[in-house]
């Protein structure tokens, strides 16, 4: 019964000018500008092409938006910043502080990557709240490449910073005594599975959160249009969920970049071990114990 009413709501909304429409067999989603164009010109091949590649178009738009604002802010660089430059410097300083707070003072090197991931995901997520826009992160095909980029970046950073030997030593659980080396094959399997599960869980988390929020909003938009028959006015009952959307957008972008930073920090924590290899043995054992606990 509930499904019938939702389907009915979505169908009713299809005749309205805004709100949700029901795709074949899928969950309802919010009407965006390209789907709207397709409704206006159903025969046009160009619009059909746009509709097929809407996620790519929206991500490219998002990248252009970010680049444009950064260019605008960095156009007249001054020692004492004004206007947009001020905002952008504040944002980047905040990101730098966030990364250095987790990785340590050497973290500035990784701020560009983590910051780009954060901004890209945040702007993409927020586009879902803007009318006639669509957030591309609600598709698995957008979030998986970002997660894979993070995966390869973390692995390559590990090899670059620790050396191939150090990286493999990390993969077998950093053994330094006989028992450690005996457990190494087991820990190798565990570590490899853990590393491979990370991109999948990152991608699924972002995709699930954003698309779930969109489906929720679309269903409430459909209900809002559906009750028009009763009270003669389309009711914006999805309004509270827009705030939920703002919150989810920020938290998911934050969590994605936080986890990226934590993965980097877990790999780089071995670096200090190599630095302090000449310290006394007591200290070293204590530190390696601490690191095993973190892992």
């Amino acid at each position, binding site marked *: 019964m509930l499904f019938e009413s939702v389907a009915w709501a979505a169908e009713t909304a299809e005749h309205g000018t805004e709100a949700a429409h029901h795709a074949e067999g899928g969950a309802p989603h919010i009407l965006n500008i390209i789907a709207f164009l397709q409704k206006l010109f159903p025969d046009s091949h160009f619009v059909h092409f746009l509709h097929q590649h809407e996620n790519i178009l929206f991500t490219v738009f998002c990248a252009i938006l970010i680049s444009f604002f950064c260019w605008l802010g960095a156009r007249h660089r001054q020692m004492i910043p004004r206007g947009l430059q001020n905002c952008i410097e504040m944002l980047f300083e905040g990101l730098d502080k966030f990364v250095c707070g987790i990785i340590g003072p050497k973290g500035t090197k990784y701020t560009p990557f983590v910051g780009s991931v954060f901004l890209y995901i945040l702007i993409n997520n927020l586009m879902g709240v803007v009318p006639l826009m669509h957030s591309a992160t609600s598709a698995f095909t957008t979030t998986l490449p970002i997660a894979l980029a993070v995966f390869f970046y973390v692995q390559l950073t590990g090899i670059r910073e620790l050396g191939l030997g150090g990286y493999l030593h990390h993969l077998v659980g950093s053994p330094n005594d006989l028992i450690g080396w005996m457990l190494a094959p087991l820990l190798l399997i565990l570590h490899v599975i853990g590393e491979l599960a990370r991109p999948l869980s990152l991608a*699924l988390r972002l995709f*699930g959160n954003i698309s779930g929020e969109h489906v929720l909003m679309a269903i409430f938009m459909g209900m809002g249009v559906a009750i028009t028959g009763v009270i003669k006015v389309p009711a914006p009952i999805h309004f509270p969920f827009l705030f939920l959307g703002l919150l989810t957008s920020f938290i998911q972008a934050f969590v994605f970049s936080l986890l990226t930073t934590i993965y980097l920090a877990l790999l780089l924590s071995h670096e200090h071990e190599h630095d302090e290899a000449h310290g006394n043995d007591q200290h070293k054992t204590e530190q390696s114990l601490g690191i095993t606990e973190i892992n």
Partner: protein
Amino acid sequence: MENAMAFQSMLSIFLPLSLAIVGMFAALALGKAVSAAMDATARQPEAAGKILVNMIAGCALIEALAIYALVFAIMTSAKI
């Protein structure tokens, strides 16, 4: 034909039920995490920022499990 009907009606009963169970336990876990974070913040208000960041990381990991169930449910709901 009848088998397909039975399959669909079973799916439409148990799909929302599975989401409800997942939601219940995710809410319990989140409640535990947040209450511990609140306790910690009350004991040491100057560490509030750090505790908040750690809490959000933990909450994201807990929520991820519920989200996997949601993704699965959305994918399967096309079969009803």
